[in-house]
């Protein structure tokens, strides 16, 4: 059933999300066309539009996830969602998987557009992009081994995924908690208030743990190693404190469990 839920969830959310990617594709097309026919003003305009799309795509994705989750579970569509022969866990998991998927796509597209625009703009003023890429590679080559580079990149991706999952969990919990009878009286403000309270608590815990609980991952000849040194300086270059990320991972699981419990026991569909 989870597969069917995910399939239908993608179908439903694609209607909200896809237009921003279509807009990006059309703008890229205009930009390339302007470049080919050498129309400077059109090329400049398309470049600005792409930068705008790169930034706005994250906002649109964020809003799309919130609206889709609220409408399909706690609006009239909830009568359909909550009477499907599936568990609340499966329902929540499908929404989390699809939200995570859209967030990743949006971040990747946004980053790719910004890098693309930057490289296009710098090449227009005569700077060498190849040199810049070489510098980046050189920076990573200072890591002690190939295994360390590989593992370090995996760790970076993993921390990025944890942050997105944490954000999705915070959003889903806030919206669900706001739809319990006790908070419904606050109306549309309830999810915003709950989100900011959780967000601030999350940030404070993250900061305190990162600064006071020294769990450090450092690259060595044998790949990444775990250390418990007191100072990031002692740990050396490219060392990364992971206690904050570990907290986010645990908090994400906790928030999803709490959301599922609220869906199962306390939610009041209007």
């Amino acid at each position, binding site marked *: *059933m989870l597969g*069917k839920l995910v*399939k*239908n969830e993608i*179908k*439903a959310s694609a*209607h909200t999300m896809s237009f921003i990617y279509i807009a990006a594709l059309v703008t890229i097309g205009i930009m390339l066309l302007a470049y080919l026919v050498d129309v400077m003003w059109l090329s400049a305009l398309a470049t600005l539009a792409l930068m705008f799309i790169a930034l706005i795509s994250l906002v649109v994705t964020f809003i799309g996830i919130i609206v889709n989750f609220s*409408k*399909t579970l706690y609006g*009239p*569509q*909830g*009568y*359909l969602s*909550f*009477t*499907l*022969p*599936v*568990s609340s866990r499966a329902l929540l998991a499908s929404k989390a998987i699809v939200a995570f998927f859209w967030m990743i796509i949006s971040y990747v597209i946004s980053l790719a557009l910004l890098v693309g625009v930057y490289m296009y703009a710098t090449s227009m003023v005569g700077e060498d992009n190849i040199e810049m890429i070489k510098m980046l590679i050189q920076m990573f080559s200072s890591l002690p081994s190939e295994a360390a580079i590989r593992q370090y990149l995996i760790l970076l991706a993993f921390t990025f995924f944890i942050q997105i999952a944490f954000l999705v969990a915070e959003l889903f919990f806030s919206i669900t908690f706001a739809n319990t*009878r006790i908070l419904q009286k606050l109306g549309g403000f309830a999810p915003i208030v709950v989100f900011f309270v959780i967000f601030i608590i999350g940030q404070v815990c993250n900061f305190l743990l990162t600064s006071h609980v020294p769990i450090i991952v450092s690259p060595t000849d044998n790949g990444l190693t775990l250390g418990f040194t007191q100072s990031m300086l002692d740990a050396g270059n490219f060392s990364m404190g992971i206690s904050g990320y570990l907290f986010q991972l645990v908090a994400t699981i906790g928030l999803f469990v709490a959301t599922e419990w609220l869906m*199962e*026991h*306390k939610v*009041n*569909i209007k």
Partner: protein
Amino acid sequence: MENIISVKNLSKSYGSHQVLNEISFDFAPGQIIGLLGPNGSGKSSLIKILTGLIHDYSGEVLIDGEIPGPSTKAKVAYLPEKSYLADWMRAIDAIRYIADFYGDFDMDKALKMLDVFQLNPKQKIKSMSKGMQEKLQLILVMCRNAKLYILDEPLGGVDPAARAFILDTIMKNHPEGSTMLISTHLIHDVESIFDHALMIGQGKVLKNSNVQEIYDEGKTLEDVFKEVFQYAWQIG
């Protein structure tokens, strides 16, 4: 034979407002039951509990011997009072969606009914009138071969001319041996189809009786409804 619906000492309150107070009843399968009561009598809350939409109640509720959950939801075809389909869907998308999740959904029958109801499969929900949306939702429910059909005010937003057509659709399309629980306050239009009447008000079961017994007393269901609820408001 196991009861299709079994409710024992069921209570539900919203804050200090008690909508259901220690109610109990059982229904054997194969009947058409009228769930009757004025607005605010607790009909919708009872239906939400039976369909697994509300879980925070006290007492025992069993659907075909099971506590409401994913397994009972597969056996229950539910028509809510509200329009619950997504705007972006077309009629055919809604049919495919239901067919995806319910193994008992009859796709061929649904396509034929779309034709009978003169609904375009490619028409978007957002461009449909309220009446068209209600017809589509009725198709989605009545094309299932469910054990229990729960219809919440199926005639509520429909003009008197269309009521007979909708009732006819309901009667012709529910499988033999299945049970129907129909909530309504329009008793005059539907009383002829009921085998059993459950009247609730003030959080209590005020009448739970076989419709034939009521007729044998020389009364109509509407007469009894008026008697029961006049009394209920007096004691309130």
